[in-house]
């Protein structure tokens, strides 16, 4: 639901990822890691919702 909401306000779908991997599924872990890295990389640096460092009181 949170993912839906964040996407709704413009956070790109590939930014937030969820998965279920059992402790024996090393290959799945690597597969998903590659997918996640690729999807985030394809989106470029995050643009939205970043709190500017200088503004942190």
């Amino acid at each position, binding site marked *: 639901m949170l993912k839906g909401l964040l996407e709704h306000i413009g956070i790109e779908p590939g930014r937030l990822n969820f998965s279920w991997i059992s*402790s*024996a*599924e*090393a*290959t*799945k872990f*690597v597969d998903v890691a590659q997918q996640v890295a690729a999807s985030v990389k394809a989106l470029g640096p995050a643009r939205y919702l970043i709190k500017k460092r200088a503004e942190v009181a």
Partner: protein
Amino acid sequence: MKHPRFIDMSKCIACGTCAEKCPKKVDDPFNENMGKRKAIYVDYAQAVPLKYSINKDECLYFKKGKCRACEKFCPTGAINYEDKEEKVVLQAGAVILSTGFKTFNPSTFPTYQYASFENVVTSLEYERILSATGPYQGHLVRPSDYKEPQKIGWLQCVGSRDINRCDHPYCSSVCCMYAVKEAMISKEHADYDLDAAIFFMDMRTYGKDFEKYYERAKEHGIRFVRARLHTLEEDPETKDIKVRYADEKGEIQVETFDMMVLSVGMETPAELVETAKTLGIGLDTDNFAATGVFTPVETSRKGIYVCGAFSGPKDIPQSVTEASSAAAGAGLLLSSARNTLTKEKHIPEERNIIGERPRIGIFICQCGINIGGIVNVPSVRDYAATLPYVEYATDSLYTCSQDSQETMAKIINEKGLNRVVVAACTPKTHEPLFQETLVDAGLNKYVFEMTNIRNQCSWVHKDSPEMATAKAKDLVRMAAAKVSLMEPLKETELEVDQRALVVGGGIAGMVAAKTLSSQGYQVYLVEQTGSLGGNALLLSKTWRGDDVQSRLSELISSVESDKNIEIYKDTKLTNVEGFVGNFKTTLNDQNVIEHGIAVIATGGKEYIPNEYLYGKDPRVVTHLELDKMFLAGDQRLKDVKNAVFIQCVGSRVPERPYCSRVCCTHSVKSAINLKENNPDTNVYVLYRDIRTYGQREELYKEARNRGVIFIRYSLEERPVVENINGRISVRIKDHILQQGIAIDPDLVVLASGIIPQDNEALAQMFKLSVNEDGFFMEAHAKLRPVDFATEGVFLAGMAHYPKPIEESIAQAQAAVSRAVTLLARKKVMVSGTVAQANPVMCSSCSVCIDICPYSAPSFIKQGPFTGKAEINPALCKGCGLCVASCRSGALNLKGFGTDQIMAMINEI
């Protein structure tokens, strides 16, 4: 006899360098020889202990006298070619055999062409093919050409239920279910429309929730074909497998599969037969360890117990149950010696660090070249020293080695450190070790954080050392940020009340009470009816032919005369308070009993049919009523001309979509009894699948030999029982003959299923869960079959699921065994990593109470914070679910606090 490993276990750090350098590739037996491993190896990646060993028969040094590559590269000098076979003599008061089984080897049988056709594999090989750690890294491909199979067939009962080819008359119990599972997983694995077909004789999905899985498999499009394949042919070009079979209508079908999986059964390996002789324990005709229905884990020799598939084919939950049961047996023999071999450890007093400014020590491990070879450890160390609050940063070759531990303890004291970070391998294996060092140095074990720069950094980023170093720095920074916010946590100690409550006075309950009492514990046994015995009071004989009533009355009188057992008949529970170690239970007579653990053995009951003229015609009885007639020596049974058994009455129907497990065996046994009474009685069994699992299959065979006629029907075309002018008429469509049959029986026996008791109230009192069918739900279907998710409460007998006496007894003993692990400790330590509520912030919305799987949160009942949530640390497992779901921010998880995790997030 201890075989040599040629590795010093205390030195091996499982870095894997030896296997990487070893030049000798050998077949990997763990992957059913489908993949390769090295001559120096670990059995499989999750092996415990994770230590290497050398296969002497394959090692080049042992065979040819040179190589020694592993010795050269081993960073810790763990290789020892001089290791010798060692004779170890152990003194033991009891022996438990859990030696298991081997799968049937189908290679000698030409029908299956297993040896010659590449794409015919056994089910175990297929398991490895599906596995992520298997020979094809979990990609579903077939052996001949690594092509993704479009069509896979499973062939059931290979090496089971077959006396012509393999001399195994028994059913291997597990193959139907694993074949369905493999087919389902294959369907999930394949991102295309895989055609999966299972060729079977009877589909034996008799376990808890198995039938539902079977139904789901059908919905997923898995084909279930009732046929025995008689020929497998291989296409020499494509290596596809062509099969021929007669379908249910008797028509010959030809299909081509890309792969054929042989669902191989279980057997006792020959060397185990020898071991049994050495040990002097009896085997039965199938070479399984002989046990009795009332003594399911005892071998013929006192003091030797057996569990798992050595005493007959069985699945994981049953094996696990028996393991605990055998442990209970052994524990009983040894109970006088309990705690006599324990040693006490000296622990220095904990230094109070509250209020101190964090002084962090960071210890970075090179793990030989494992980390140091990729990550620039000195630069991480120097970077670490610059982080806030860091007092000291160092690196060492092996932080986990004994001397490093001693140094670490010394540094903690010298530098007055009050927080420690170790950047090394994985906390999953090494956190306890370092925490122990902290404790030895007078620190609380929770002011510690471990970050993983090996398994999750150096090992997986070999090609980019710079990036790996940058990542390691980030990870260390995150860990330091977190640890600076860590506080010492207390592990509370709770006394465990040494008394036990057993709910239910049937066989399971009585056995549980008796076993607890024999181990020296006081037991309260609560039974809701006026007499002990439960359903067993209605049974005549076990499937092995034991007389139930005589055994039962022995058990009842031994329970009733037991001074440790206090029996409450005609009694129910009305309220339960407390938690593991300290329950307070109120009975309906207002008596309050206090106990440390509870065993739930409330049993089940017979389904009262409303179908098939039951209750309307005295000639229609349930099988328990037939048992009563047998018990009473009813003369009418001798005069029965035609008897009809109808199976699955109230079971495997949409309203009750589970199999009652015991009815097939029960009916087959009763059918044989009728035949014994009068061989001229015509006995018909109308069934859907005959589920005489395990060695019960032999009864099925006997029944057929005695002339019992088995006629199959389907759910869509159930038998019709009518009263026609005073005669009972049973009509059914025979699937083999494809025509209707009419029988005029003078006795109709309904194999009516087993339904649960009304468990709802009890479940609420003890905070247990029941499944959709109304049976209690264990903590884990496979691995924790007698535990509840609620600690201190255990499950036995038919309250869990319908089951025969031997399984109820094993489960009762297992429940006790599990309970004794708590009772014997006398105290339970509660982990420090638990949730904590701040009542001021709580909005009483009760989300935590609803979401917690362990019932740890509750509302405060009195005082200024009445109605606000509190967490019982004894019940909390520290998962943090409640914390994440708390909108009000009133909850926090100690050790994984919101501030701590936020601090880590901030450092990324």
